[in-house]
């Protein structure tokens, strides 16, 4: 039940973030969505994720606030605005209905199949020595994924440093 409330809160915050006129408020609202997500993770019994989501959210917020230097928000509504919005909404509606029927085939909420996961839970501690099963998975069973993940962060750092250079070309244009 509390999950439903939390999700509704997140949706409300997301709508605020999308529709509010002021950019700074929009960024703050998205922060609220992120914190709601962190709480949701806690309710869903994922403390690792809750911690990570919380700190990542703070960092994201700082970076995004850094980006909102100027608060100009264009509000031009040309003739096709209504048409475009309506078509997007119809598309979203069709997507949701389709998803509703497709997702019915999934196992019920709260009862995952856990075919492979049982194996991790039963033997994870004995095989890796870590009591935190999530840590055992990300760093041992699926360590290769984590190498990729670390590489992604490395790539992003390199990318930011490359994009932020003052002079791109040596002879100009």
């Amino acid at each position, binding site marked *: 039940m509390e999950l439903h409330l939390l999700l509704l809160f997140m949706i409300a915050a997301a709508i605020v973030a999308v529709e509010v006129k002021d950019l700074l408020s929009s960024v703050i609202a998205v922060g609220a969505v992120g914190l709601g997500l962190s709480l949701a993770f806690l309710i869903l019994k994922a403390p690792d994720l809750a911690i990570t989501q919380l700190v990542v959210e703070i960092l994201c917020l700082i970076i995004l606030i850094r980006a909102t230097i100027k608060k100009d928000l264009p509000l031009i509504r040309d003739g096709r605005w209504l048409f475009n919005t309506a078509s997007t909404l119809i598309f979203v509606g069709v997507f949701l209905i*389709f*998803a509703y*029927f*497709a*997702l019915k*085939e*999934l*196992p019920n909420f709260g009862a*995952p*199949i*856990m*075919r*492979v*996961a049982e*194996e*991790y839970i039963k033997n994870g501690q004995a095989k890796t020595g870590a009591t935190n099963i999530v840590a055992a998975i990300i760093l*041992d*069973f*699926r*360590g*290769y*994924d984590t*190498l*990729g*993940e670390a*590489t*992604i962060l*490395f*790539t*992003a750092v*390199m*990318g*930011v*440093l*490359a*994009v932020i*250079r003052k*002079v*791109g*070309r*040596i*002879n100009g*244009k």
Partner: protein
Amino acid sequence: MPFFVIIPLGAAFLVSLLGKKIKSVGDVLANLGTLSLLILSLYSIKLVNMYKVLVYEVGSWVPPIGICLVLDGLTSFMLVTVNLVSFLIALYSVNYMEKYTDKYRFYTLFMLMLAGMNGIIITGDLFNLFVFLEIASISSYALVAFGTEAEELEASFKYAIMGSVASSFVLLGIAILYAYTSTLNMADIANVLSSKPSPLLFSFLAVLFLSGFGLKAALVPFHAWLPDAHPSAPASISAMLSGVLIKVLGVYALVRIFFNVLGINNFFLSMLMFLGVISMLVGVFLAIGQWDFKRLLAYHSISQIGYVVLGIGLGTPLGILGGLFHLFNHSIFKSLLFLNSGAVEYSLGTRDLQKMGGLREKMPITANTDLVASMSIAGVPPFNGFFSKLIIIFACIEAGRFGYAICAIVGSILTLASFMKVQKYAFFGKLSQKWQQVKEVPVLMCLAMVVLALICLAGGLLITPFFKSFLGSAVDVLLLGTGYSGTIFGALK
């Protein structure tokens, strides 16, 4: 086998660590790394011939508990394509990238992109595929913006947004697949799915994966980012993006998931064919009106990807053979064309076809290799593009799809027309006064272009019986369909 990922990653980290102090370390490490990868991938052909399928368990965990790496016919085919092209492009970049600052960052990102692509190709795990997909895409976003000019940043932003949305679709698809099967190993998923089919869920998944990977492959309804992003990047990166990235990220991943994991059916196939034909025609029509050399090439990429997808979508052995063969050929000649455009830009400083003319006298090597590539992409015998297009058209006729065959022929003719335009304006005709002092590009750039042109000529030989096993084993993997899981688990025992 994990060396396909370790080598580029290690090279990337080392280059970023040492590159600032020692200038040449980037050139040396990048070229050595790509060369060794090329040799390894050529060796992998032999391995595949001997063992058919090789499975490597990372961390000695048996799948589905751990991640496994799979080396089969399709994998080694893609590895050879990617590493061949990237080695030549690394060679080319040594001189070309002198125009930009911070060359070692370029090499770092380049090697990371290569690592991402090799990782996608070789993995046998669905989530691992996603992770490496993100490595390759994030480095390509950064590389598109490498020049940090206004247009490049804008193109990169567009590309990054589209690409991230596509990744989210893919991740959502993976989440649903996980919920349904409770495993992430591709072979295992195929096993579970074939035991409890559910048509509605499958089509939902197909929509998610098709929009995700279709965005990455720039199939037509999702192509808006490509004509901006590809021309904006440095020429060697355009060659990389157009030549291999869209194929690995888009076509390979799509085909691997549709054929080997979800299991193909007629609905998927007709969807693929339809998208292929639409991309083919729209791409070529948009290309004809372009005057920017690289933009024209970018639209042709869309059109040629259409051919590849059409061929594979036919689902017949001949069609798949043609599609894969065209994939190989396209990555060769399209990278050659982009390298040519880079060479022209390097010497002239412009990409506008109307300002060029008569470059044949001043830049003979560029002009001749460009002629080879243009003939090849237009499908003129005896170049490789001709054979692959011919196979695709034959396959269409064989499958009774005469309409698609006619579309393919029309597309081919229009391609020829637009490349005649390039040749006429850029390389033939009068040399204008402005370009009297233009010189041929440095020797390493020439070397890379000449080698690619030679492969264009020799590419036709790939369908001769001697090389047939190379393509044939790749085709076999796709024809196997969901029997893929059987071979993987067979190889484990």
